[in-house]
């Protein structure tokens, strides 16, 4: 029996999930590099992206593009409020208490979302239809193509922003050494705020593009957030190639594991990888290639 279409299908499914993990991982990395904390509320921005899009698109009957733009804007505003109200007032707290605060914030955001939108799962319409496309014996939905395209676009935009724009360079400077950065006149606080803006926007975008495939509910952020966290750990907390590779690798291993070993171990695979990396190579799989973090 020819197994290649089957393998190809696993690879396609894995890569599309992996792209989402990579985007969520990006959000973790950007905030980590600016502030040194791991923002466990990152998954909630993914949830907010999906739920807000659904809210504008289905309940208020907005067209797709304005619904998406509004969803990203509101998620970003929530990200800013989060930084202003919960992170900035505690600038000198230990990283541990900061991490606990982000966990608290994630529970709060999830609880509010549940009160507003209820506990049900909701279907979000696909951007451009549900007719599968056939590629070499495997199938793919138009939405997958959107996911790949938007992920690539965001990665490219990030690269350009951090490497060529003055603000992006300033953010990298803060990540490298925030004291030195403030000495040369960079407003570190603004850069921290900006990191929350960027990561909540990317997180919500990830939530928006995946929602038509997986549907959305108030609690999708937990699992997606953890998977994104795995991706960024594999990538060694970099917001560059490492996290992208980490996300794709995680998605692939999950999908191949579910296909060839057993689907029962799908989530276990992600967390075994996470533990292995933390034990054996806490600096990430791809570290040697990069000398700086952002």
């Amino acid at each position, binding site marked *: *029996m020819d*197994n290649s279409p*089957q393998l190809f*299908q*696993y690879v396609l*499914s894995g890569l599309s*999930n992996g792209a989402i993990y990579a985007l969520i991982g990006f959000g973790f990395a950007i905030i980590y590099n600016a502030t040194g904390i791991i923002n466990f509320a990152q998954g909630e921005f993914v949830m907010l992206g999906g739920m807000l899009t659904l809210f504008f698109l289905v309940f208020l009957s907005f067209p797709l593009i304005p619904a998406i733009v509004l969803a990203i804007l509101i998620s970003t505003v929530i990200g800013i409020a989060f930084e202003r109200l919960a992170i900035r007032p505690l600038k000198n707290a230990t990283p541990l208490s900061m991490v606990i605060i982000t966990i608290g914030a994630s529970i709060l955001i999830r609880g509010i979302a549940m*009160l507003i939108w*209820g*506990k*049900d*799962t*909701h*279907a979000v319409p696909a951007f451009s239809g*549900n007719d*599968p496309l*056939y590629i070499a014996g495997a*199938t793919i*939905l138009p939405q997958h193509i959107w996911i790949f395209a938007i992920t690539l676009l965001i990665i490219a935009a990030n690269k350009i922003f951090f490497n060529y724009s003055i603000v992006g360079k300033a953010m990298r400077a803060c990540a490298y050494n925030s004291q030195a950065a403030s000495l040369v006149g960079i407003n570190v606080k603004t850069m921290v705020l900006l990191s929350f803006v960027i990561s909540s926007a990317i997180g919500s975008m990830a939530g928006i593009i*995946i929602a038509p*495939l*997986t*549907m959305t*509910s108030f609690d*999708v952020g937990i*699992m997606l957030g953890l998977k994104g966290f795995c991706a960024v750990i594999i990538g060694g907390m970099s917001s560059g190639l490492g996290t992208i590779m980490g996300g794709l690798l995680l998605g692939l291993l999950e*999908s*191949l594991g*579910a*296909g060839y070993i*057993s*689907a*029962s171990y*799908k*989530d276990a695979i992600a967390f075994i990888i996470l533990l292995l990396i933390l034990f054996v190579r806490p600096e990430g799989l791809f570290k040697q290639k990069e000398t700086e973090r952002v």
Partner: protein
Amino acid sequence: MLKKMLGLVVSMMVVGLMAGSSFAAPPIKIGALFSVSGPASFLGEPERNTAEMMVDEINKAGGIKGRKLELIVYDTQADATKAVQAANKLIKDDKVVAIIGPSTTGDTMAIIPVVEKAEIPLVSCAAGIKITDPVKKWVFKTAQNDALAVARIFDYLKKQKIAKIAILTVSDGFGSSGREQLVAQAGKFGIQIISDETYGPKDTDMTAQLTKIRSGGAQAVVCWGTNPGPAVVARNVQQLGIKLPLYMSHGVSSLKFIDLAGPAAEGIILPSGRVVVANHLPKNDPQKKALLNYVDNYKKHYKVEGDHFGGHAYDAIMLIKGAIERGGDSPAAIRDQLEKTSKFAGIGGTFSYSSQDHAGLTSDAFVLVQIKNKGWTLLK
């Protein structure tokens, strides 16, 4: 949410006032345990709503022999510890004469020792077969056994001359109980399970399992789970271009599933209580009157369609009402009369309890329905 809570408070006050103002006998207290919040809220919420609606109805119509009913509801959150605490509270503090619920098999199994010790009749709204098998003196149930649903599907598959199937079950209580029954009964119907796959309750992509199933050579796929997983399965089946007929469990027989799965739901066949096809039933169906009455009433009160989960609570309340009418309101009398219930046409089916059978239903409690044009059609 707030509105609902206000409504609850107001209705409780109204019930309280009515009870207080009527100088007749004190109300008959019935306890209810439902998983109104938490992972099984899709069961508990309609059950709670239905029970409250029915008690209101009964009281408006003059109560039972002139005595009002008082319903005391606690939320178990599908947590066995909370269920046991709440059951103790109902029995010791509230002094109820009977308990309906809990919504899940886990909660029910946890409180069985409590009600048996206190000798209070329990009418569970959960489906697990072990609740009433072996028969326990004080425990009855209204939800249909999984075994009946499985038998209904296999019977149909056999008629369609389908002998090789793939099963895809969710790895939670509902799914593993369904899987057990699917595996146990397959042989009896001459059906061979050639792929046996599972998925996690929170999984959002089942293409890997389905790709494996596709290459396995099955003639049909049977998926056992509750929302949202099966909707993802239906969408993935369409995405992968799998042309095999797809069967689901009664766990998704609500409009919510059709809404979630969208066009991918078309053509899916599943066993369901009669409630979703109440309008299509033949006139001589004994349940038709109760079903139409329930569906209309629920829609009037809560603006959404009543589903068959709420129906379990309807049946529990009506069974207890019948028992009190016949034998009075002592817990022992209620138990004895419940056991004598015969041919009560409710929502879940036509119940006949006996000292050997506290589940009370046969496989005709299920009908097979097919999803067509975003609605249900009855399969003959």
